[in-house]
């Protein structure tokens, strides 16, 4: 085995990963699904809501929370849903269908690194979009800056983790891009409903809100709104997001097919 000893060099790990991230970034720019759906649309909605006079009113007579404030977490949830359930899984499933993952597995680089690159690119998109939403709302539309920054960041991280792992699970079980599209959309609408995109959570019946508490975006919106207003997110909401993140990651790992 002298020959194998001579060629068992350390793999150029960081180098390859960086190149994979650059390539996936170029693809995300050239096929701007995540940019348009996950960044542009939520920010556009923020501006539309911001200039609508109705959004300066309280969401109901029992509270001082304005529609504008209530919708900041909802728009963050929208961003996470569109990036996590559409922008993240679709390219992965397309890569698999085109046998690109298989081609990569014939190189010294494991195809899971492409998965890591795809997660990294979408993470950047999500952070940029959420930053624009919170920053824009605070700077231009009179929303108070998050009072509990730690709780806000923790809620944002857990919400991102739960939606991204759900997206990876969609990528894992979808045999083709159309199936991934249908599955992602089928999850998108109920999740966004419970997040309060159409009816703010505060205006939902107690029963509906209770169901929403067990969805990743329902608890995300609750946690983000709480910390926006100065109280640390409720433990049950953080636990719900963490459980979704862990279970979906394990399921994605269990079911992911490379070809």
């Amino acid at each position, binding site marked *: 085995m002298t020959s194998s000893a001579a*060629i068992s060099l350390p793999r150029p790990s960081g180098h390859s990963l960086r190149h994979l991230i650059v*390539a996936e970034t170029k693809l995300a720019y050239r096929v701007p699904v995540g940019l348009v759906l996950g960044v542009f649309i939520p920010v556009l909605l923020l501006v539309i809501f911001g200039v609508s006079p109705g959004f300066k009113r309280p969401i109901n007579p029992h509270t001082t929370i304005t529609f504008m404030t209530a919708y900041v977490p909802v728009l963050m949830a929208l961003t996470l849903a569109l990036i996590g359930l559409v922008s993240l899984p679709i390219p992965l499933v397309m890569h698999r269908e085109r*046998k690109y993952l298989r081609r990569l597995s014939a190189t010294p680089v494991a195809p899971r690194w492409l998965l890591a690159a795809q997660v990294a690119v979408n993470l950047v998109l999500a952070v940029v979009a959420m930053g624009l939403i919170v920053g824009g709302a605070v700077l231009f539309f009179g929303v108070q800056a998050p009072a509990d920054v730690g709780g806000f960041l923790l809620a944002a991280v857990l919400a991102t983790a739960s939606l991204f792992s759900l997206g990876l699970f969609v990528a894992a079980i979808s045999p083709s891009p159309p199936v991934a599209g249908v599955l992602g959309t089928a999850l998108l609408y109920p999740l966004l409903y419970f997040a309060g995109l159409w009816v703010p959570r505060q205006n939902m019946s107690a029963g509906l809100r209770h169901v929403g508490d067990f969805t990743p975006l329902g608890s995300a919106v609750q946690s983000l709104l709480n910390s926006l207003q100065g109280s640390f997110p409720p433990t049950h909401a953080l636990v719900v997001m963490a459980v979704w993140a862990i279970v979906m990651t394990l399921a994605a790992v269990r079911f992911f097919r490379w070809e």
Partner: protein
Amino acid sequence: MGDECERSDCVVDVQHLHKAYGSTVAVDDVSFTVNKAEIFGVIGPNGAGKTTAVECLSGLRRPDTGSVRVFGLDPQRQRVALRQVVGVQLQEGSLPIRLKVSELVDLFASFYPHPANTDDLLELLGLTSKCRAYYGKLSGGQKQRVAIALALIGNPKVAILDELTTGLDPQARRDTWELIAGIRERGVTIVLVTHFMDEAERLCDRVMMVDRGQVVALDTPTAFAEHYGGGSHLSFRPTHPFNDALLITLPEVSGIEHVGDRVTVAGSGDLLGSVVHALESAGVEPVNAQLTTANLEDAFLRLTSRATVAPSEEASR
């Protein structure tokens, strides 16, 4: 190591390879070795198990039983080390259409510790003018050349090329053959899966034919054609009638047939020389002589048309 691979120039050693998908046996007890800087062809009908067999070499498939060693490396256990010395061209397109040629080549170069010079490689493959084009916008032949470039970018010691020239026009095929021959000149060992017999005949030092998952024959293209192609036929018009015994006694001749005033002699080896010599000594002159020699395609067709084929002695050579 298998007993077949004791010579120092043996780089690929496959012994008793077996692979089934469910109840379908794809590869059934296949053994072969490939020498350094050899172009080794794998031929056989569609679904014969060619691709499965070579995918066990590159580690893309895990053999059920049997041993596979490439430069002494186990494709399953020494994953990274093996992939650093084996370059692969897959049957399908398998690359993102919205990446440019230069981006793909740079990306794949980053996967290997000692990559080839990307500019030189693009030049060698005639892709320099296309390096800023999207992969998805390339013609079939250009895509094929990109696939070859990516198989060679890591400076592999073994290149496994599956359906090298499928979809290429005749000129591009000939250019690609020249390219592959040139790469072998640099000491790279090439395993070539093909269903073009002219390609195997032109390029390969040895050809292995696989059918129904088994090795049917393994030999040089010339010997292969001779053994399995039905031999040569010499057809001519004799200036004088002659006794068949004159030729039938020759070791090279296996049969004689008269059609009209023409005679067709079947046989092998130096058929032309021995027949002409024998005729001359009897004062007979062959007029309008035509020699047809079996090629690899004849051998292929004869071998695949048989209902059941027992592996020949050559197969285990």
